[in-house]
């Protein structure tokens, strides 16, 4: 009953939008007819045609046309999200089995398609027909990071929530209200674009924009509270099916997953791709590696709290996280309604575990045996672009990619050391006759500088332009020790007896057969502090088979000049090409409207012929009379020739005999006594 009422409301809002657009169109047409009429009925002696109406019609016609076009466009069902991958049932029977089973339990049909996206989110759509009254093609979108980052029962809770939307027939409400919202937002944006390039539209579009904005505000005001209530309903359905704790954990994990996924893309994958062109064949597996790192989990502290503290804004279609958790807690029979209780991290839950309410989960055995992470395997990364000026990107198995990432992050810190070593060497040799540095700096160059008591100079050159205080010197020394240890580690890895291990929350770590990272750091620190100990460091390096002279300090490769392309932006580019401005300003329809109106007016004017309206509507033309005003001769006839002029007493005034009606006279007796004569 409630669902039907809601559907009716959404339908009314959608129909209201159609009606608004239709009425505005009708009003425009009526005004156009009037304007043409005014244009055609020009006074025969007027100087100009009246085209004011045409200007107004052009200025409002373009935004109106854009609105109508969007309203028409959203009445077609939308296709699938282009940034998603179809999950084939034959290849991923496990996920499909879980979805079918959950759909069966919540009492609805399974979706026709499951699609994976790169978002940390999940969604269902129902491209319904007949204004959303009939259920149409159903799609379930599932973010691939969720498959890696959520435990099996949490993922089931997420799926149950989404299927709960189907079960509650929420699409009946969501789809029409989404269409209204999307049409208005799109129309608004396109009107803004047209306003930028077209002055006439800029002058008059305010009327249409006002109507669009007003209708959007009203429809949001009506629909958003209901959409928020639907989320709570879907949460309750999921809680009944999988347990409130699983869903609460999933909801709490999502901000953390989103923060991790952003960091993974922006700070790990992207820099390596830029530097070397390498991309992983399966980024979600590598992402899983990152999530499993306990150090990384420590970095995430505070994200949950911030997510919980975040209020929901009035334009949100979802309640805030805290409100959802409170409602989930209220759904639990045996727990106090305290959201804090749900916030404890419990992501280590076994997939088939009983819920804390004491009853087993309602999902069956198939769902419990299924491990979510397997799904991501066959599917490749969408979000990482594969076109580059370098040509094809190097797609690597993800394990090798993680190793390459670890090495890249370790060696990336060495560029300042290379520059500093070169500069200090130049400075040292400046007195001698050789003005240039002897080739690229190697580990031996650095050791020679330490030998020559130039450790602090080298350390300061690592970050030039700093104030020189005691504390800064201490920091500079630490930086030098870290950089030099990395360089030695690079040498050890080069001999084949060690490798870099990825540290997701910090620098990469050296793992070697014959030594440890701490040992290397100790040797280096001693050598930096005491130049007498450098020879000991050399001995240790020799025992590890590291050739100090051959170990060049890696620095970013210099770009080859041939590959450098340039791009030019000029004043002309800023204005855009004529064609682009033509399209953006909707100039063709604008010219069409004004030209059409003008043509219609002219045709009507020619057909009418020269008309003589005394007061044509809307035209203020002074009525010019050809002759001076003369007194009407019948009222004041010219004086007769024999008389001296006006004013004579014997002037014969015209007489008009008035008809007289004989009326009976009645004698009314006076109430007062009359005085007798």
């Amino acid at each position, binding site marked *: 009953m409630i669902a039907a009422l809601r559907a009716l409301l959404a339908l009314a809002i959608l129909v209201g939008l159609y009606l608004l657009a239709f009425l505005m169109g009708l009003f425009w047409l009526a005004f156009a007819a009037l304007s043409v009429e005014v244009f055609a009925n020009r006074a025969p002696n007027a100087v100009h045609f009246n085209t004011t109406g045409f200007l107004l019609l052009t200025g409002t016609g373009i935004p109106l046309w854009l609105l109508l076009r969007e309203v028409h466009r959203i009445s077609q069902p939308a296709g699938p999200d282009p940034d998603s991958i179809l999950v084939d049932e034959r290849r991923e029977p496990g996920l499909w089995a879980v979805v079918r089973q959950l759909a069966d339990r919540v009492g609805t049909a399974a979706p026709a398609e499951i699609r994976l996206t790169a978002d940390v989110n999940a969604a269902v759509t129902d491209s319904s027909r007949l204004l959303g009254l009939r259920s149409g093609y159903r799609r379930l979108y599932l973010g691939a990071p969720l498959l890696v980052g959520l435990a099996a029962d949490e993922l089931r809770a997420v799926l149950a929530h989404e299927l709960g939307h189907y079960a509650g027939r929420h699409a009946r409400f969501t789809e029409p209200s989404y269409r209204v919202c999307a049409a208005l*937002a799109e129309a608004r*944006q396109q009107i803004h674009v047209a306003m930028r390039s077209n002055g006439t539209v800029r002058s008059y579009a305010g009327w249409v924009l006002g109507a669009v904005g007003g209708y959007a505000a009203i429809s949001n005001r009506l629909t958003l509270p209901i959409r928020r209530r639907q989320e709570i309903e879907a949460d309750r359905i999921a809680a009944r099916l999988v347990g409130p704790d699983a869903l609460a954990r999933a909801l709490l994990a999502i901000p953390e997953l989103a923060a991790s996924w952003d960091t993974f893309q922006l700070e790990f994958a992207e820099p390596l791709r*830029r530097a070397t062109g390498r991309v992983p064949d399966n980024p979600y597996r590598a992402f899983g590696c990152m999530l499993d790192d306990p150090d990384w989990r420590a970095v995430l502290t505070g994200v949950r709290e911030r997510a919980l503290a975040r209020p929901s804004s009035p334009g949100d279609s*979802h309640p805030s996280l805290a409100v959802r958790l409170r409602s989930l807690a209220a759904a639990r029979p045996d727990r106090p309604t305290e959201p804090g209780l749900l916030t404890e991290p419990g992501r280590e839950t076994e997939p088939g575990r009983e819920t804390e309410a004491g009853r087993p989960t309602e999902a069956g055995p198939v769902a419990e045996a299924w491990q979510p992470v397997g799904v991501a395997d066959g599917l490749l990364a969408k979000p990482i672009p594969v*076109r*580059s000026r370098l040509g094809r990107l190097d797609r690597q198995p993800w394990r090798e990619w993680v190793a390459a990432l670890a090495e890249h992050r370790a060696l990336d810190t060495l560029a300042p050391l290379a520059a500093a070593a070169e500069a200090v060497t130049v*400075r040292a040799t400046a007195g001698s006759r050789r003005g240039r540095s002897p080739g690229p700096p190697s580990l031996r160059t650095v050791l020679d500088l330490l030998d020559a008591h130039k450790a602090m100079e080298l350390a300061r050159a690592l970050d030039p332009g700093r104030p020189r205080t005691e504390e800064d010197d201490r920091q500079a020394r630490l930086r030098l020790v870290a950089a030099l240890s990395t360089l030695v580690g690079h040498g050890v890895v080069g001999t084949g007896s060690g490798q870099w291990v990825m540290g997701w929350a910090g620098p990469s770590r050296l793992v070697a057969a014959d030594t440890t990272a701490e040992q290397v750091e100790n040797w280096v620190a001693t050598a930096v502090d005491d130049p007498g100990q450098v020879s000991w460091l050399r001995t240790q390096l020799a025992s590890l088979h590291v050739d100090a002279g051959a170990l060049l300090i890696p620095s970013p490769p210099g770009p080859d000049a041939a590959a450098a392309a*340039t791009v030019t932006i000029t004043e002309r580019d*800023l204005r855009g090409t004529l064609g682009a401005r033509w399209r953006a300003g909707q100039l063709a329809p604008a010219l069409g409207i004004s030209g059409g109106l003008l043509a219609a007016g002219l045709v009507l004017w020619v057909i009418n012929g020269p008309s003589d309206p005394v007061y044509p509507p809307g035209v203020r033309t002074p009525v010019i009379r050809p002759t001076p005003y003369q007194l009407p001769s019948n009222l004041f006839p010219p004086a007769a020739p024999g008389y001296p002029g006006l004013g004579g007493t014997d002037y014969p005034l015209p007489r008009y005999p008035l008809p007289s009606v004989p009326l009976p006279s009645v004698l009314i007796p006076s109430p007062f006594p009359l005085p007798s004569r």
Partner: protein
Amino acid sequence: MNDDVDFDLFMRRTQSRLLARAIMYCGNRQNAEDAVQEAYIEAFRHWSTLESPAAWLETTMRRRLARHARRWWSGRGRFELELPVPAAATVEEEADALAVLRAIGQLPARQRQVLIRICLEGMSYRQVADELGISAGAVGANLSKARAKLATLLELDPAAPRPGDPLVVSPTIDRNRPTGRQDPLVPMLSAAEAWLVRGLESDPGGLDRLRAAVWSAVGERRPG
């Protein structure tokens, strides 16, 4: 001698970033190089007394640019850029960066000054107002006009919602904004600037020229 090497190292470290920032401000490679060069020359003269050279340099560069923009012959701040393209950038990155550069090129100089100071440098309204000699209200007005124009040019208007019933509205939270929404403009501007920096670094000839010009202006033999 020691200072020279230090200064040269410092210049190598900072010049591409500073030049990119100057280009974002004025949209003209020549003017940007002039301002950066003058700022470095000025920095060299005060090198031994500078507490925090990077910040000092940026402020000086901004002042030089502002002074240049006030001159009558600078006209309407002609936008003229020939930029090296970073070799490893994808086609999408290049298109995005160029779109941002074109869009900020269409802003009036004052709006661009305010926008970049607030969105990229992270200055407060008060600081911007003091530096530009305008009121804090004028800063806000310029910023909102610039934002509105960029929102149309870069299609940042609150986009149409996505269809369907998602699990959460937006999964990412941003600690700097009370509503938790990301400001879409700041990452776009930063990405465009990073693209510029990488492009400038991939063309070492231009940066070498800049350093050589600074050294010849201060009348010292260039170290190295």
